[in-house]
Structures are given as C-alpha cells and as structure tokens.
C-alpha cells in the first residue's frame, strides 16, 4: 500500500511537474496562431523526453553518475567545458524565464507590476533551495501543478467543434496567414519546450541523490512512461483552449495574462484562480529545478560535493553557485526585460543545446563498463538513434529559422 502510494505520488508529480513557463507560453502562442496543426510536435517532443529521461535515469540508477559527470568523462576537459558553458547558459536562461514567470503569475493575481515581485520571488525561491527538503520541494510543486488540469476541464466546458479540432491535428501545415518558415520555427520552439535539457539534469541528479539502484529502474520507468505523456496532454490542452478561443478571433497570445482567459471564459473566476495557482506552482517548481540544475552541472563537472541531501556547508561551492545564479537572474529581470521574450528564446536555445548532453548519455547507456547488463536494448537503441538524428536536425535548424523569421514575427 505504501509502495503503491509512493508510485502514484511519483506519477502525479511527474504530470504536474512536466509543464513549465516554456510549455505554458509556447503552447498558448502556438495554439492561438496555428491551432492544433503543430500538436504532432508535442507528441514527438514528449516521446523524445521519455527516451532521454529513461536513459539518463537508468544510467544514474546503475552507475550512480549524473549527467555532467558523464559529459566530462566522455568529452574530456576541453570540449566538455564548452559543453558545460553552453548547457549551463541555456539552463540559466530558463531559470530567468521561470522566475519571471512566477512574478508574472503573481502580477496577474495582484495587478502589481512583475518587476516589483521579482526580488520577492527570488528571495522566497532561494530560501526554499537553501532550507526546504528535496522531497517536499519535488512533491509539493508537482501536486499543486496538477491544478493545470483546469485547462482540460475548460476545453471540455467550452464544448468546441471536436471534429474541427481533430481536422487541425490531422492537417500539419500552416494556416492561410502563416508561412512555412514561421511554422517550422514554432515547431522547433515546441520541441525545445517539451525536451528542455534541464529536466534531464534535474531528473538524473535527483536519482543519484536519492540513491536509486537497479531495483528502482521499474518505478523510474513508470513515472516517465505514464507521467510525461499525461503532462504532455496538459500542454496540449493549453494549446487547444487558445486554439478554440483566440484563433477564430485572430488574436495572438503575446503575454502570460492572456493564457488563462479561455479558462475564465469557460469556468469563471474560480477557474481563473485555479489556473493561476497552477501557473505559480509550475513556474516556481521549475525555477527550483533550473536553479539547482545550474549548481548540479558545475559541481558534477568539477567533482565538487553537491546536492540537497547534505548540509549547505558540506556543499559550499554548490550553494554559492546557486546563490550567485539567483542574484544574477534578479539583476537581469530588473532590467525590465520581458520574461515572455526570455522564455521564447530559452526554448529555442534549449533545442539548440540538446545534442550536447544527449549524445554522451546515449553513448554511456550502451557502455557495459558503466551499465553491465542494463545497457540499451535494441528498442531503446533504435529509438535513441532515431531521436539523435531528430535532435541534431532540430538543433541545426534552430538558429537559421530564428534569423529568417526574426524570432517568429
């Protein structure tokens, strides 16, 4: 019974923790501009993150090594360092976007400008990272993040023409007012939002901290195989409601405050309040994960002690990096940069940086020296290799598409 509860909790937090600011903004924006014609990208991205997370979770459980240990072991100090800087840079950009997202969610609820909330949010966030137990952090935000189910309820309540929605899903091409380049650009953005690298850094580091062993691989897989697709459905329901409400009206989503409007239309004030609670939990939880991931990456690369399971003074350099990242993130946000714009760039740069960490994991997952009997089977390898090609193509296309579309204009 206790075991069942633990498994259910793991799956629920995987669902609630799946959505972050990148998923919220990108899905809403894409829904309002392209309807559900890009829904297939969410599916491709979700399967991709499942493949990536399963491999790195298995490597963490069997070898006890997290992502950036392996990056350095396989790529050496020089290329490994370039990889660290690029991946950490993208994670840090996502960290800024998440903190901005929390501030925006509070702005929507209070009508007090987000810039004023940034220092408050960052201070609260840092106290959580400094003091709150890992399990509490993971479970609390994951469970409250489930409030985003309100988007699925809103979709049902809006009672759209389901045949029309399905027609959008099955016609994967840009609408009359859109070009193929902007369609492709947003395909890259959606893919980056679903397959954000920090999710894997956090997942594998958490596994190492919780001392997963080979017998935990089954539970880990259940979380990934059930939790991530259901989390992906939450993402899709956000795209679907904006497709129903904004697309016919020709309104383009440009700010986070527009995203919960369809919920307000369908379910009134209560729905809006639940949606905002979901926004807050999803972005705050992801801010914790990205902040820790910045510290994890650097500490693992240089062999420092790290993590939430030891007292901060036992992982002094790790906590100093997390603190510094939080301070710099606040400084960036206080320049009044638009967090939604930061988010749009962060998902595209995520897609760009993916191969850097994906390849070392794919190689190690096939190395019997690390994995013994638990190396990739033929199925994991077939999927893993197909996805490597997909990830490289998306990564190569990201910057040219960004330039061609001027960031999706």
């Amino acid at each position, binding site marked *: 019974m206790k075991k069942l509860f633990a498994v259910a909790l793991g799956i629920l937090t995987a669902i609630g923790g799946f959505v972050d600011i990148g998923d919220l903004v990108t899905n809403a924006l894409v829904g309002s501009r392209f309807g559900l014609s890009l829904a297939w990208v969410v599916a491709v991205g979700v399967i991709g993150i499942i493949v990536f997370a399963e491999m790195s979770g298995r490597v963490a459980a069997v070898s*006890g*090594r997290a992502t950036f*240990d392996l990056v350095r072991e396989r790529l050496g100090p*020089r290329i490994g360092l370039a990889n660290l800087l690029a991946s950490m840079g993208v994670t840090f950009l996502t960290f800024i976007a998440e903190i901005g997202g929390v501030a925006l969610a509070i702005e929507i609820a209070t009508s007090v400008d987000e810039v004023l909330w940034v220092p408050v949010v960052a201070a609260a966030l840092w106290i959580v990272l400094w003091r709150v137990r890992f399990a509490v952090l993971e479970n609390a935000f994951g469970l409250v993040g489930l409030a985003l189910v309100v988007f699925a309820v809103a979709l049902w309540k809006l009672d759209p023409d389901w045949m029309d929605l399905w027609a959008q899903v099955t016609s994967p091409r840009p609408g009359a007012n859109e070009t193929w380049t902007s369609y492709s650009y947003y395909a890259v953005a959606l893919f980056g939002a679903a397959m954000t690298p920090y999710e894997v850094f956090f997942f594998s580091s958490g596994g190492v901290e919780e001392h997963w062993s080979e017998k935990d691989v089954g539970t880990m897989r259940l979380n990934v195989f059930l939790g991530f697709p259901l989390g992906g459905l939450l993402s899709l329901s956000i795209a679907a409601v904006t497709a129903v409400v904004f697309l016919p009206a020709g309104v383009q989503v440009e700010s986070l405050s527009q995203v919960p409007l369809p919920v307000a239309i369908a379910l009134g004030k209560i729905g809006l309040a639940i949606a905002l609670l979901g926004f807050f939990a999803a972005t705050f939880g992801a801010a914790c994960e990205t902040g820790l991931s910045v510290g994890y990456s650097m500490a693992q690369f*240089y*062999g420092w*002690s790290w993590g939430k399971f030891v007292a901060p*003074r036992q992982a*002094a350099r790790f906590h100093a990096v997390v603190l510094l990242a939080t301070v710099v993130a606040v400084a960036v946000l206080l320049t009044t940069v638009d967090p939604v714009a930061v988010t749009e760039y962060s998902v595209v740069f995520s897609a760009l940086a993916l191969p850097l960490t994906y390849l070392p994991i794919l190689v190690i997952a096939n190395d019997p020296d*690390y994995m013994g009997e638990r190396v990739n089977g033929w199925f994991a390898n077939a999927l893993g290799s197909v996805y490597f090609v997909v990830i490289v193509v998306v990564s190569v296309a990201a910057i040219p598409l960004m330039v061609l579309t001027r960031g999706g204009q």
Partner: protein
Amino acid sequence: MAERTDQPGFRRQYDAQLHLLDRQILDRDGLPVAKVDDIELVVRADGRLAVAALLCGPGALGPRTGGRLGRWTKAIWRRLRPDEDPQPGRIDAALVTGTDSAVHVSASAAELRLDGLERWVRRYVVDRIPGADHAD
C-alpha cells in the same frame, strides 16, 4: 595504457584515458573529493608505465584544458596559492582502493585537504548564512 599490478586499486591493464581521467574520486565514506584532473605516471623497471598518483585541481586541469583558457586557469591558480612554486593536489596511487564508475580512495576528503576553494567558500560565504549546517 598503464598498468599497476602491485596496487589493490589497479589490478588490471586499462586505458587511462577511457577509465581513469576525468572520473569522480570518492572518499572512504563515498563523498566526492575531486575529479581525476590528470595523472602522474612512472616508468617501472620493466619499462612499462604505472600510475603513481592522481592529480587534482586547477593546477592539473589547466594544462589538460589547453589553449589560452588552460594557461589562464593555471596562472590564476598559481597567483592564489601562498607557496612559491605550488604543485597540483596529489593522491598517491597507494590510497586507491578500487575503480568502477568512480575512483575510490581509502582516505577521507578532510584528510586529503584538496578542496581549498570549498573551505574558503564555506568559511567566508556559506557559514555566514543562517542554517548552513542544516541537512535534509
């Protein structure tokens, strides 16, 4: 290729590049010490190479990183050290008790004293914040 048959930790011939360099070093309690940033080799009487010590810290990593960044890493590290001619942190091969996905040593991280930056950050930054010794 390096071989060390007379030490408990190095029972077989192996590829130092693939199996030793850049691995995590864990102390006797399983706590992280450092990375194997470089290794010191000796030529044995029979002419074969053996690992004499694991080298750790920026003084060892800088030269392996190479280029301007590597030189700067080492130069900054030298400036920050009090001694006239600082040497990289060194763990004698005799302390190595085994290698798997990490390199295990028989000393404790505190005894090895390879973590100068960690101790500095602990003393001047982290210990000054309330709750620094509160573990999960």
